[in-house]
């Protein structure tokens, strides 16, 4: 089975910052280092899975 994975730029999940806000802080989700970390994380999760409690948490969101 083909697994499709997206590492998003986060823009679709923008939220509100209630703490100290600075427009000087850049979103670096597309920085090669963070992209690689995210890909590694996804591979890790595929290999080892989630805690069952996390799966229940995810189910509760649907």
């Amino acid at each position, binding site marked *: 089975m083909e697994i499709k994975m997206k590492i998003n730029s986060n823009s679709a999940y923008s939220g509100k*910052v209630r703490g100290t806000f600075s427009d000087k802080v850049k979103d*670096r989700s597309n920085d090669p280092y963070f992209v690689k970390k995210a890909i590694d994380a996804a591979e890790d999760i595929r*290999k080892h899975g989630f805690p069952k409690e996390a799966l229940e948490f995810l189910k509760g969101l649907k």
Partner: protein
Amino acid sequence: MSKDYYPYFGNASGMAFEFESEGRNGKIRKQVQYTLIDDNGVVYFNLGFGDLNEQTGDIDDLSISDNQDREKILATVAATVLEFTSYFPKAIVYAKGSTSARTRLYRMGIAKNLEKINKTLRVFGRLNSQWHEFEKDTNYEAFMVFRR
């Protein structure tokens, strides 16, 4: 959580945070980045953390700043986890250090702030491919957190 953490700043997305470590080697900018992963419909976030290279603007996770402020840095990262999940209460956050030594540091940071973190978050550690509720003094391979 220890009150001894650095003031940090977040951007408008709520997924990027920055702070400055201060110590004997001067000021070093640090970035915490939450990256969305949508793996075939399963959505979660990776916690990324590293030094911001002032010259290149790139992140360097393997640098050793040696500012003798490890606990303060870890407490600051933990504070961003709490803040991030307040913006995204349905988020699951995955964290693993770039090296086993860094992962041990994450474990120490969680353990040090566990009482405060546990009020809000459920924390799990992975050991030998099995996930367990986080316990102090266990050398986990990776961590996962989400809101209670």
